[in-house]
């Protein structure tokens, strides 16, 4: 604990450096804006801005890119509550009670309680990270190649089966991602793989090209003629409208605390990110309520609890990424990829070897969340105006940023063509009911997985038993097997019983 406080003090020195502070502000501001603009996603925004960070210091780059992620959560709630548009998956469930509150003239209060939930949830999530991440890293320090390999297997399986969509499709996308990561020169043998003699491919595929294709261009194609035209809101919201009454607070604070706990627990299980956390929190609130019939008609608990859980899960999401180097979802995979592009090796050593990055990031979370509250509470009127920007003007602009961004990664026109191909492929995947997010998980972890797998078997002289003989590895393998078994049982049950999650929850 004491070392955590010392680390935090160091982190604040890093994060308060004016250069880092500005980039943290830029990150949360852009994030908030992206959250508000209907149709824009966090993944595509981070991918678009990724090339711009190559010339920055690694710390500043990470603070900014992370800021986009948690900043978007503030904006996403506005979109859900005022327009009933579930643009950001974690906030889809907030629509259910947030929008009825808006219709009955209590939209301001809903936003006010959301801000409170955000601050409490985020604060808890950050504290959890401060305590747990160094602890987890200190355990993982002793892991050898077989343990790392087994842990990656678990992380990849969880990431691809627990998220939305069919688990079979999720796993196949992860495998595809690993396969894509193998393109280029094999570092162990010097052989070229899947390059087809194309010179530009011998260094492998660019992370930016893959993610901008799959999440940028494919998203545009999906939404440009598919998104509902902007709903109108002529609401004039000011600072005062956000203030919840004493009664609202009494009703809202216990759900906020419960939601926070749900979110922080969810963030510890790889693969269950903020979206699942918010659904569980909502379901829990409805279950324990004495008046469950109020839900769906503007119950303040139905806003407070899922929002708190989203924010605590978003901050907790960083724990496995920073302490083990294993991302739980596509956003984290992208951030990890950004670190690797800056030459920083992720893994348990990161916290000790790069204290600037880890503690600077945590300090920037505190600062960023405060900036976000300041940005949102007094300036709510401006964000409400931004809700009106139609998507049909946004996507052509974003497309240009995609083109120039991917070009600037290494001044190679080839990559712009690759982005178009990946975009078309991503669109096909969406049409066939695939969720492309696990591709990114596989793509980022693939090379490390192969390397550790090779090393494990080299050390064990070709015996696969090394993954079962070593107790820690065996535990990870065991959990992976359980996970797959649970999915099979769930699939068998589902074929009999209808599903419960409301469909509009997804996108």
């Amino acid at each position: 604990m004491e070392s955590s406080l010392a680390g935090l003090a160091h982190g604040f020195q890093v994060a308060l450096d004016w250069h880092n502070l500005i980039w943290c502000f830029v990150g949360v501001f852009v994030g908030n804006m992206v959250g508000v603009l209907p149709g824009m996603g966090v993944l595509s925004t981070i991918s678009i801005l990724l090339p711009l960070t190559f010339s920055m210091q690694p710390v500043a780059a990470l603070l900014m890119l992370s800021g986009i992620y948690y900043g978007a959560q503030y904006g996403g709630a506005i979109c859900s509550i005022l327009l009933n548009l579930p643009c950001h998956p974690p906030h889809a469930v907030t629509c259910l009670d947030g929008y009825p509150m808006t219709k009955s003239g209590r939209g301001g209060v809903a936003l006010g309680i959301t801000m409170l939930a955000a601050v409490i949830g985020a604060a808890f999530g950050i504290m959890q990270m401060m305590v747990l991440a160094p602890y987890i890293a200190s355990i993982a320090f002793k892991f050898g190649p077989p343990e790392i390999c087994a842990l990656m297997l678990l992380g990849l399986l969880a990431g691809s089966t627990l998220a939305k969509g069919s688990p079979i499709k999720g796993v196949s996308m992860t495998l595809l991602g690993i396969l894509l990561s193998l393109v280029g020169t094999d570092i162990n043998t010097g052989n070229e793989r899947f390059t087809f003699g194309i010179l530009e491919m011998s260094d492998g595929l660019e992370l930016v090209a893959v993610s901008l294709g799959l999440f940028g261009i494919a998203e545009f194609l999906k939404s440009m003629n598919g998104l509902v035209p902007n709903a109108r809101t002529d609401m004039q919201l000011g600072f005062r409208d956000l203030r919840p009454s004493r009664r609202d607070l009494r009703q809202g604070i216990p759900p906020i605390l419960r939601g926070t706990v749900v979110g922080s627990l969810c963030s510890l299980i790889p693969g269950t990110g903020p979206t699942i956390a918010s659904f569980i929190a909502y379901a829990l609130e409805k279950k324990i309520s004495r008046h469950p019939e109020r839900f769906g008609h503007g119950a303040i608990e139905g806003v407070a609890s899922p929002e708190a859980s989203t924010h605590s899960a978003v901050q907790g999401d960083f724990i496995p990424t920073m302490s083990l180097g294993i991302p739980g979802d596509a956003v984290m995979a992208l951030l990890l990829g950004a670190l690797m592009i800056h030459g920083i090796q992720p893994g348990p050593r990161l916290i000790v070897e790069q204290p600037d990055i880890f503690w600077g990031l945590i300090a920037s979370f505190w600062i960023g969340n405060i900036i976000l509250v300041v940005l949102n509470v007094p300036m709510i009127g401006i964000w409400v105006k931004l809700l009106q920007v139609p998507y049909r003007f946004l996507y052509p602009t974003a497309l240009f940023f995609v083109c120039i961004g991917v070009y600037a990664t290494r001044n190679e026109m080839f990559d712009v063509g690759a982005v178009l191909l990946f975009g078309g492929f991503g669109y096909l995947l969406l049409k066939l009911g695939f969720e492309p997010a696990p591709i990114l998980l596989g793509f980022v972890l693939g090379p490390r997985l192969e390397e550790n797998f090779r090393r494990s078997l080299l050390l064990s002289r070709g015996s696969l038993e090394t993954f079962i003989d070593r107790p820690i590895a065996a535990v990870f393998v065991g959990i992976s097997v359980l996970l797959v078994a649970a999915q099979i049982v769930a699939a068998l049950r589902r074929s009999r019983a209808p599903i419960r999650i409301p469909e509009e929850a997804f996108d």
Partner: protein
Amino acid sequence: MSLFDKHREHLAGLLVGGIGAFAVLEGQSYGIGTLTAMGSGFFPVALGAGMIALGILMAAVPAAPAAHLPGHGPSRLDWRGGLSIAAAVVLFILLANRAGLAPAIFACVFTAALGTRQTTLREAALLALGVTVFGVLLFAYGLKVPFPIIAGVYA
């Protein structure tokens, strides 16, 4: 329900299985090696085999209703949108080096904007003009991307 929708899971399985089969065939030529000393082909072949198995599973097992996520269907392809985006990117690739950054941005944004019927020609032109001015200021002057602004006229 269109033919595409009806056979969606089969097509999905075919795609995954096909990619897997390709990985196995291509990977074999890199040398599989042994478990102790793996060749470059080991991982591609293993992944490919896994994908073939999953592809068969996908086509054989009827998808659970949860797998039919809204937002992925109806499966009508958006030709207008798709062509406009593809043309916009291709125009950018062709124009940026030869004609310069400004024409490339204008063509890219203008073409992309026409991908939806709601946008009029006038709106598309205005949007493209605005983004061009902004883009040139940011990328040519701010970030110094190595393109001429207008080739032959203004570098």
